[in-house]
Each structure stands twice: as C-alpha cells, then as structure tokens.
C-alpha cells in the first residue's frame, strides 16, 4: 500500500532534476537566512511558499502534455483579458500599474503570462507543424507581442523583455530562419535610439547608471556600487556564512530579494558562486536533455523555452548584481525571497518533468 503510494508520488518526478533543484533550494534557504539578518520567520515563510510551489510542480508533472495543450489558449486569452483589466482598472504601486484587484486577492497577470505565452506559442506551432510557413511565424510574433506591449506599457520593461525572450526561444526552436533572426537583430539595433526616446526617465537612468555607477553613488548607482563591493570583497573563499559586512550592516539594498546573489558572493566567495553556477548548469543541461528527447513539437518547444528562459533569468539577475547589465527587477531563480516567482519557476519545472516522464506514454 505504502509502496504504491510512493510509486504514485514519484512516478512523474524526474529524479535528476529534483535532486538539482532541491540542492539549489536548500542552498537558497541558507543564504536567505543570512540575507534576512537571521530572521527565521522569513525563512519559514519562504519554506511554506516552497512547499506550495513543490506541490504545484508535482501536480503539473502529473498532467500529461496533451492536457496542457488544451489549456494553452484559454490561459493565454485569460491572461490577455487580465492585462487589459490591469490597463483599465489596475492598482498603481511604485509608479507602475501592475496589479489587478479581483476581490479575494491582488494578482499580477504578467506573472501568468510568463508561462501562458510560451504555452500558447508552442501550441500554435504544434497545430501548424505539418505545413509551417513564414506567415506562421508572423502570427506567432503577433501573439507574442500583444501581451508584451501591455506589460511594457505598465511599465514593467524587465518582465516584458523576459517574456519576449521566452517567446523568442519558441520561435527559434520552431525553426525561425537564420536570415530573419539576423534581420531582427539588425533592426533591433537600428530601433535602439527610438526605444531610448520612448523610455521613461527612470529606465534611461538605469542604463546610464550601468555605464557609470559612480555618477550618482547615493541615488541610482547605489545598488550596483554596493553589490559589486559585496561580491569583490568576498574574494575566493568569502567572508563566511552570516559574516558578510555589506549584507549585515545593511549597505546592500534588497538583499533578500533581487540582490541576494551579492550576499552569496560576499559570504561564500567565488567557490559559492561556482557551486551555484554548477547547479544552474546542471538544471539547464537536464532541461536541454529532456527537451532533446521530447516526442512532440509542443513538448519540445515548451520544454526548450522553459529551460532557456530559466537560464536567462539566472543570467540577467547575476549580470545585474555584478554590474554588467542594467538594474531590472528580476529575482534570482530558486534563491530570491518571494512566493510568486518561486511558484512560477517550479510550475515550469513541473511541465519539464511532465514532458520527461510522459514521453513514452505519448503515442505518435
């Protein structure tokens, strides 16, 4: 009886992925304990989010991919409607209109779109698989840009860019022509000055700050200056767990959320960073392996997009904290404090596991 229950529990779990994820999550909790000034409540609350997220992951892992396909377009349409709702009735917080109050809770529809957009695109290409043309890519591009424009308008440029990235990965893996990619790259470069003129002041400021953080050391440059100091002063071996001066004397802003990586770098040094990079690469490698063995167009595209998007999140956050990318509000995946991003992230890994474990069951 217990054996059967156990089998039911682990039947659709990818053991390798779960091991790598668990190691990363535990490492994350240890860093969070230090980053939140040894606040056990915060670690516990993160632990609860984690359990919820793991449950979601398990649930998704048990949903066969063909069922997922069925919810693709309804999720997308719902997300789009919610975004429209945000644009019309959304709550403003910190100068941006991102939240929608639906009575019982305030939700952030852009979070839903992180999964809904690649799902929708993967579904679309699956449907067009037999006779794919360039026009299909144009339709996919429109499906991608519609929500992205809404989100960019909120304004939430970081999320908009990341969703664009996740959608682009689907297009790329679906076989978007190299020439088209080159053309897009060139026109993006040409469009850059126009984009600059359309950007909000604070957004421009962030880019300027990246180029020269010292110009406003107490204002917008403060984050980058303090986080690079934290990283650099960590050295090879780090200052030791709970001993980071930048973190514990409160020089490091947002140290338990977006800038938690600086705490890791300060306390565990280059070795700690290498450990995290290795864990991330293992997860990505496993994701790519699952993707390469996926049986259908839909599963390949969704698994590939989820894997590459995960890598993008990690790269953007670490790049921002170490001062080579502008400051955009992207959490460090699996480590940063915050329930929503944790759930979104593990939901994605649930889909990956579903793809991984339902492979043989899908008949083709």
């Amino acid at each position, binding site marked *: 009886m217990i054996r059967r229950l156990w089998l039911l529990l682990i039947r659709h779990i990818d053991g390798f992925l779960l091991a790598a994820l668990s190691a990363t999550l535990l490492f994350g909790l240890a860093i969070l304990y230090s980053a939140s000034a040894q606040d056990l409540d915060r670690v516990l609350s993160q632990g609860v989010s984690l359990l919820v997220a793991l449950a979601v992951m398990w649930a998704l892992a048990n949903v066969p991919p063909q069922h997922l396909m069925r919810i693709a377009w309804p999720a997308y349409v719902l997300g789009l409607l919610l975004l429209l709702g945000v644009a019309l009735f959304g709550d403003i917080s910190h100068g941006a209109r991102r939240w929608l109050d639906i009575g019982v809770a305030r939700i952030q529809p852009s979070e839903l779109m992180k999964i809904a957009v690649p799902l929708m695109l993967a579904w679309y290409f699956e449907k067009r698989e037999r006779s794919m043309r360039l026009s299909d890519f144009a339709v996919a591009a429109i499906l991608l840009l519609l929500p992205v424009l809404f989100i960019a308008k909120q304004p939430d440029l970081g999320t908009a860019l990341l969703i664009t990235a996740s959608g682009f990965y689907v297009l790329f893996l679906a*076989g978007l022509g190299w020439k088209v990619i080159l053309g897009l790259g060139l026109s993006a470069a040409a469009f850059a000055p126009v984009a600059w003129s359309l950007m909000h002041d604070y957004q421009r400021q962030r880019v300027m700050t990246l180029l020269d953080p010292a110009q406003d050391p107490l204002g917008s440059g403060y984050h980058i200056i303090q986080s690079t100091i934290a990283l*650099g002063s*960590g050295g090879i071996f780090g200052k030791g767990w709970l001993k980071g001066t930048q973190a514990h004397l409160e020089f490091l802003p947002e140290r338990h959320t977006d800038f938690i990586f600086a705490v890791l770098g300060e306390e565990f040094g280059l070795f700690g960073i290498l450990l995290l990079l290795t864990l*991330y690469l293992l997860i990505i490698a496993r994701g790519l392996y699952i993707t390469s063995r996926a049986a259908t167009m839909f599963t390949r595209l969704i698994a590939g997009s989820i894997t590459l998007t995960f890598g993008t999140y990690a790269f953007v956050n670490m*790049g921002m904290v170490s001062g080579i990318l502008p400051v955009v509000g992207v959490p460090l995946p699996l480590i940063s404090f915050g329930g929503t991003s944790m759930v979104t992230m593990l939901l994605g890994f649930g889909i990956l596991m579903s793809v991984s474990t339902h492979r043989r069951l899908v008949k083709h």
Partner: protein
Amino acid sequence: MTRRPELRNHQRDLYYFRLRLTVGGSIALFLFLILLARFVYLQIFQHEHYQTLAEQNRISIVPIVPNRGLILDRNGVPLAHNYTAFTLEITPSKVANLEQTITDLSALVEISAKDRKRFKKLLDESRNFETLPIRTRLNDVEIARFAANRYRFAGVEIKARLFRHYPQGEITSHVVGYIGRLNDADLQKLEESGDFPNYRGTNYIGRAGLEQSYESELHGTTGFEEVETDAGGRAVRTLSRTPPTSGDNLTLHLDLKLQQVAEQAFGDFRGALVAIEPKTGGVLAYLSKPGFDTNLFVDGIDTQNWELLNNSPDKPLVNRAMHGQYPPGSTIKPFMALAGLELNKRTPSFGINDPGFFTLPGSSHRYRDWKVGGHGFVDLHKSIVISCDTYYYGLAVELGIDNIFGFLSHFGFGKKTGIDIEGERTGLLPSQAWKMKRFKQKWFVGDTVSVGIGQGYFLATPLQLAVATATLANQGAQMQPYLVRQIQNAKSGGVTPIAPQTVSTLPIKAENLELVRNAMIDVTRPGGTASRAAAGAPYAIAGKTGTAQVVAIKQGEKYVESRVAERHRDHALFVAYAPAENPTIALAILVENGGHGGSTAGPIARAMFDYYLLGKLPARAAGAVEEEEGEHD
C-alpha cells in the same frame, strides 16, 4: 506520397531542432562563462580594492575634537576657557522636512526666532552631512523631554559639546579675540595649508586676537575613533581609539587686574591703552575702549547684535590700540629732544626766546605755539616740561626730515611692532621717499616743521607709542612687544617660555637719556603739563602729554574746547614710564576726544602705576574720571 518522405522529414526536423537546441545551450553556456569571468575579475583581481571599499563602508573614522587650549592671564586667571553643555543638533541630510521637524521640536524644547534664524544661517554656510545646532545649552528638563521623544526624530540628537567662553569678554575682547564657526573660506585655506585633516570634526577656528594668531597652538591634535557602522550611520561598536591631544594653554604677560584698573579708569571714554614691561616687551595691559562681548561671536552672531556693534558710532569692533592711527602730537617731543642731543644739534644749555610762533626764513606763515604769546626763554628741559612747540619747530628744521626719519625709526615708528596678534597698522613716519611715492611731490621744509611736534603727516598707533616709550625707558633697546609669556603643553604639562626679542639697539649717551628723563619727570611735577598725574606718588613718573587734533584749526582761530562738538574735540595723549629711575612699566594712553592729555589721560596712567607698583586699587577711579569729564561740559 508514402510514409517515407514524411519520416525523413521528421528526422530532418529533429536533427535541425537538436542543432538549434545545441546553439541555444551553447549560448547559455557562453553567457555563464562571461559571468564567471566577471566574478573572477571582481573576486580575485579586484578583491583588494573592493575589500578596502567594504572596510571603508563598514568602518567610519569618527574624529574626536581636542579641547581647545586655555588663555590665562599672568596670574592664571582664565580669559578664555571651555565648558560642557548639551546641544540639540540636527543632521539636515537625514531629515525629510526641516521646517516641520523644527516646529515639532519647539513643542519640547524652547526654540526662539533667533535660534531659527541662526540655524538657517548655519545651514546656508554648512558643509553637507554636517550636524548643526538648533539649540545650545539645554537644561535638564529639556534634555529629559527630548530623550523621551527621541524615537520621533530621526536625524536629531543631543550632543555634549565643549563651548568656548570668555569670562572677561568685553575687557579683553581686543586681546583674546574670539573663535567663530568654520566657513567655506576657512576650509579652503586649511586644505591649502594641509591642516584640513586635523580639523575634521572641528567646528570652530580662531577669528581674531590671540585666538586667531595662536590657532595652531590652541587647537590641539584631533583624535580618532574607528567605529563600525551600519548603512544608516549608526555606530555598532568601537574598534579602536586614538585619543586627541588638547591644545596648548597660553599664559600671558597681561595682568587682568591691571587691565581692569585701566578699563575702570577710562570710565565712559573711548580710547586705547597699552602698557609694556620695558626690559622684555611683555604687554602688561592692552585695552581698546569700548570693547564688545566676544561671547556673542562664538556660535555665529545674530544679525541684530551684529548691526548694533557694527553701526555703533563708538566703533567697538575697531582695535584702536593697533588699528587706530593718530598724530602722536607732543608725545614725540622727548624723542625729538633726544635726536637733537644725539645728533649734536642741541646742547642742554641752548635756548630760544619763544614769541609764541615760528616762521621759516623768507616766509610770513606763522607756525603757532599752543600758548599765545609764547613761553619766553626755553631750553631743552623746559621745552619738554611745558611742551613748547616753537622750540621743536626750529629743532625739526635744523635736524631735517632725513635725520628725524632715521632717528625715530629706531623707536619703532612707521613700521609694525611685531606684536603677536594680527591686524596691526604701520602708522606713518613721513620721509622724502614716502612723499614722492604717495603724492609725487618733493618734500618741503614746511612739512618738516609740523612733524617736529608730532603733527602733519605723522601718524602712530597707541601700540607704537607704547613701544617707543618702553624703548626710551629701556635706554634705546627696542623690545618686540608680545602678549604670550609661555605656552604650556596640556598633555605633558611642560612649559615653554617665550624669550624676549630685541628688535634694535640704539646706543644713546647716558647723559642725554638722563637729561630727557629728568625733564619727563618734571612734566609730572608741579609746573609740568601733567602735574596732577603724579601728585603725592611715592615713586617718580617720567611722562609726556600730548594732544592730537581731530579737526584742523584755521590760521588765526583759537581752539576753545567747550565750543567744539564732543566728537571733534582733540584726542588726549599721555606716554609715561615708572619708576623713572628703574622703569618696570611703560605705557601709552589715548583718550579719544579727551581734550588735554594731562588732565584726562594722566590720572589713568597714575591709577595703572599705583596698582602695578604699589598694588593699590583706585578708590573711585571711575568717579574721578567722571569728575574730569564734567569739566568739559
């Protein structure tokens, strides 16, 4: 179409998909390697740099301001000292709404409109991130009340501060001077001189008087405390401490009691007095009347008091003793007489018949004696005792301006005396070269005539007159006047005496000195111009009166004191030293609009000598002067 091409198609698709996946994975790996390179750069190659920055972040160096040295009179009576008081201070950079905060504070602690005004002024002048006092000298109740409400006021704190206080503020104002808050100009100067690090945390700097000229001795060495702080600037713990070294204490030659005697003797008169120990040049008393309360300046003087002081017709801020330049008048006569003897232009027995005026050959212009009708037969002795002008008109012409310039230079006229406070003026000892430079005119004999009685272009500060008198008393050896007798190291307690400095020595024949001295003694005896000054004194005073004109009198017009507006009346001068045979004190007194030297300045000198030589305090010094003043009305 069969399954074959479809199958091939499928495999080809899979191949291309995996190729693309490999490209995607490789790009991801490549980006991670870029990150790794960045981390290696930051954590290995730039580690030391960031290590230092982190330490700087974490450890702030908190300066510990040294106690400023004390200024004491010769008997150890404090003229400038420090006391601890609690101040309510605001760090403007940490306060969101200053106005509101101050208004909220005023509910707990009394904050007057004056406090607000002063705070605003400080705010305008202040450096960033500095804390500024909104209220000084809090009482216990106010401290308790604020302490209970402290949580409501971020960026506001109570600090124990040392305050400078001048217990003798007004009497010693022009000697001791005052300190004021550091401003941007001071900071720039400090940075240029390289003293800036030692002024970290210091808010004050000497602005005038000894506080200014002995700034480097008084300030001391700033100590430091290494404190671990968090990002909010709150100290977490102290890591190390280097204690400050207090500033040196200054002990003056000045005798406060003597200074007080002088102050009282002046009564309501304006003027200046400098008393010097002839053998050393040590300044025993230094007064410029009226003075002002230097305590007003310590924390930034408010506009109202400033205007009161600055616009007063009595000009209390002017240091008359060194900044005021007056014609020396007849006080120059003993020096002229000595010049005549030394340069063999006069013998003691040589005399003139004084008709009451002097004319140059070939001119009808009459240089008048102060006494209409003249003094009859006048020799050198009598010329000093009764202060005959005609005698000196002729003597000056015979000496010639070059000789006069050369001889008087040895007594310190026309140049700075080198006293150890700043702001001294040179006076004016006229010469041919000076006139050519100043007016582009050659010197006329007529110019020499009035120089002979200390008029014309001739100007001297009361300090210069005192130095010249002390030089005379010291038989021709001019000592540099100085206020600070010794500097005491506050840490070791070691005392460094300041040695007297000889400026120049003029060999003067003893018999000539005696001739002049005897005449000056007779000035203060019956028949002399200052006979009242020495009446009944058990020691001999050598003195000389003088009068400095404030407005010119026309040819043929008579100066009648009672008819002249008070501020246009002549300044009274008196120079003297005592005991005449072995002088221990020499002084010069200027009483503005005091009329005749003997009657107003003489009694002041007498009060000084009585106290200094006999330890006798004047019974009713102020009253006596008031009585004298009555004569003028």
